[in-house]
């Protein structure tokens, strides 16, 4: 029986889309409002999907308390109420688009010991969401 468990977490953060590889005019043309020099924020929703066998003693694929504390440590604490561009090392040299943010979250959670991470789905707003399931060439759990 193939089962996947998905847990949703909320976090609020600000970001600014600005690429050092582009000049100011191009940044403004490409990113529009998202290029505002002071940044802006979102209520992100992170969906974490894991899979594995059900442990018959607990009836669970992954102990929710373990998953919650792992996500709290790896994702919520470093990102919630932060300015991604300045407060997160990984985005000092990388544009914090929600694509990149989604991949960063996957990388931080892929070693969760309690179950196998399948994918991350990240909602930037109620209208935009992004999904990442690792590289498909088999190195996603290196």
């Amino acid at each position, binding site marked *: *029986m*193939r*089962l*996947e*468990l*998905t*847990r*949703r*977490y909320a976090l609020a953060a600000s970001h600014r889309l600005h690429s050092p590889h582009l000049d100011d005019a191009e940044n403004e043309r490409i990113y529009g409002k998202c290029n505002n020099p002071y940044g802006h924020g979102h209520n992100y929703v992170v969906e974490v999907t894991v899979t594995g066998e*059900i442990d*018959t*003693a*607990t*009836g*669970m*694929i992954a*102990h*929710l*308390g373990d998953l919650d504390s792992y996500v709290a440590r790896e994702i919520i604490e470093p990102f919630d109420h932060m300015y991604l561009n300045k407060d997160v090392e990984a985005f000092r040299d990388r544009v914090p688009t929600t694509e990149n943010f989604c991949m960063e979250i996957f990388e931080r959670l892929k070693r969760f010991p309690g179950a196998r991470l*399948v994918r991350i789905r990240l909602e930037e707003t109620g209208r935009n969401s992004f999904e990442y399931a690792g590289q498909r060439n088999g190195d996603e759990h290196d």
Partner: protein
Amino acid sequence: MVYVTRKIEFSAAHRYHNPAFSDEENRRIFGKCNNANGHGHNYVLEVTVGGETDPATGMVLDLKELKEILEREIMNRMDHRFLNYEVPELANQIPTCENIAALIWKLLMPKIKKGRLTRVRLWESSDLYVDCYGDGAA
């Protein structure tokens, strides 16, 4: 291939308790979910059936028929029930979202004759759900 999804909602009580563990272990592992008198959820179930459309009707399956199957197999068994005590298939399992979703798959699989049951998604709350794909691929 086209996929049709029908959503229903049922309310039920459950309790997580493994008699093989001591009371203290049960409390440590299951936390609040171990409360002796149980607690409940408004479960939301999304059932997805995939198939080709019948050229005569334009449908994969008759949704009315699916509605009746869900009423008979799921609502009558689980709605406003205490899952541990009133659903015999769950009597010797911990009625987690995983085990309930797997049971729903087993109950629905033989009843859906047109199209193929593709996915059972069971929401326990707005921040937790389980998808069951049977033995098929995602």
